[in-house]
């Protein structure tokens, strides 16, 4: 059985981060996060330290998963955008490249309309980056810039993780 892998390489991560930074800037948002659908953070930009990003990633993925479940129940393929409005801060959640989640946190210095517009542009760019990433991943170990470090994991390596 093959468990699907997601692999992120230096070059694409740099491009994703650049795209996130631009989105953050252009939309005047507080922070933007790119999260994989299973709840792991891929990249982020903005005032990231103000947030517990690990918890944020897991709850966002749970939120999207639950909403996807709701969509299917009523015969929709997915709800492409989620928006939660708070008193001060708001969050905009959308899907990128079918497998990642883009989370934008913003306040009154921005607006839903502006965020929407900029997210759309950034998404198109990130779609392309994800395509490149997939291509690279599919090349297999030979095509990789770096060899897989895991082929040579020893039992001792594994035991050492739990040694304390």
């Amino acid at each position, binding site marked *: *059985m093959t*468990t*699907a*892998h*997601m*692999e*992120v*390489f*230096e070059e694409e*991560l*740099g491009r994703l981060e650049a795209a996130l930074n631009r989105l953050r800037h252009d939309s005047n948002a507080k922070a933007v996060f790119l999260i*994989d*659908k*299973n*709840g*792991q953070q*891929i990249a982020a930009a903005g005032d990231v330290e103000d947030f*517990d990003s*690990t*918890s944020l990633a*897991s*709850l966002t993925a*749970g939120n999207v*998963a*639950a909403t*996807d*479940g709701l969509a299917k129940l009523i015969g929709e393929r997915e709800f492409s955008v989620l928006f939660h409005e708070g008193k001060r801060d708001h969050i905009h959640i959308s899907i990128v490249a079918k497998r990642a989640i883009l989370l934008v946190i913003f306040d009154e210095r921005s607006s839903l309309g502006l965020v929407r517009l900029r997210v759309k542009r950034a998404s198109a760019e990130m779609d392309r980056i994800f395509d490149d990433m997939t291509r690279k991943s599919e090349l297999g170990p030979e095509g990789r*810039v*770096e060899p*897989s*470090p*895991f*082929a*040579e*994991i020893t039992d001792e*390596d*594994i035991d*050492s*993780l*739990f040694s304390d």
Partner: protein
Amino acid sequence: MTFINYAAKEINCKIVYYGPGLGGKTTNLQHIFTKTAPERKGKMISLATEADRTLFFDFLPLDLGTIRGFTTRFHLYTVPGQVFYDASRKLILKGVDGVVFVADSQRERMEANVESIRNLEANLKEHGFDLSAIPYALQFNKRDLPNVMPVDEMYRMLNFKREPTFEGIAPQGVGVFDTLKAVAKQILIELRKK
């Protein structure tokens, strides 16, 4: 789905604790949380009902150190065990790398254990996973209670594929880390094959 970040030199794996309602899944995570050094864990999130039953999931991120220069991170999730939360259970299995099954050792819970393993098998299948192939560990929890079924009988009834099996008393931590370690090990060994 193992998530390997070559740029940040990180590897992330997802482990799901499965089993019948009140079996002790959340208690396993709580013990791990309590016993793990602050720098090696994130916040534990519990989406629970007012009666402390898991409603959607518990989540605990653990950082177990480095392998070959890669920070090795495990994201632990529990599912809600109550039968009627099946839709949520399915969602949480998405992208899973390994499963821990927490069985309740009390005699009157055997049927619920068996039913829950069947449910696990079916829900994994919907995501394209096969219980006979996925990293998996089994825990017979609540061994401290008086009305428990003998271990060998439970083994015959619940062991699926000779997966590593442990006796547990989760609130005291008995068997908790052994179980986690057994599944984590299998996940890392899987990586070696890829």
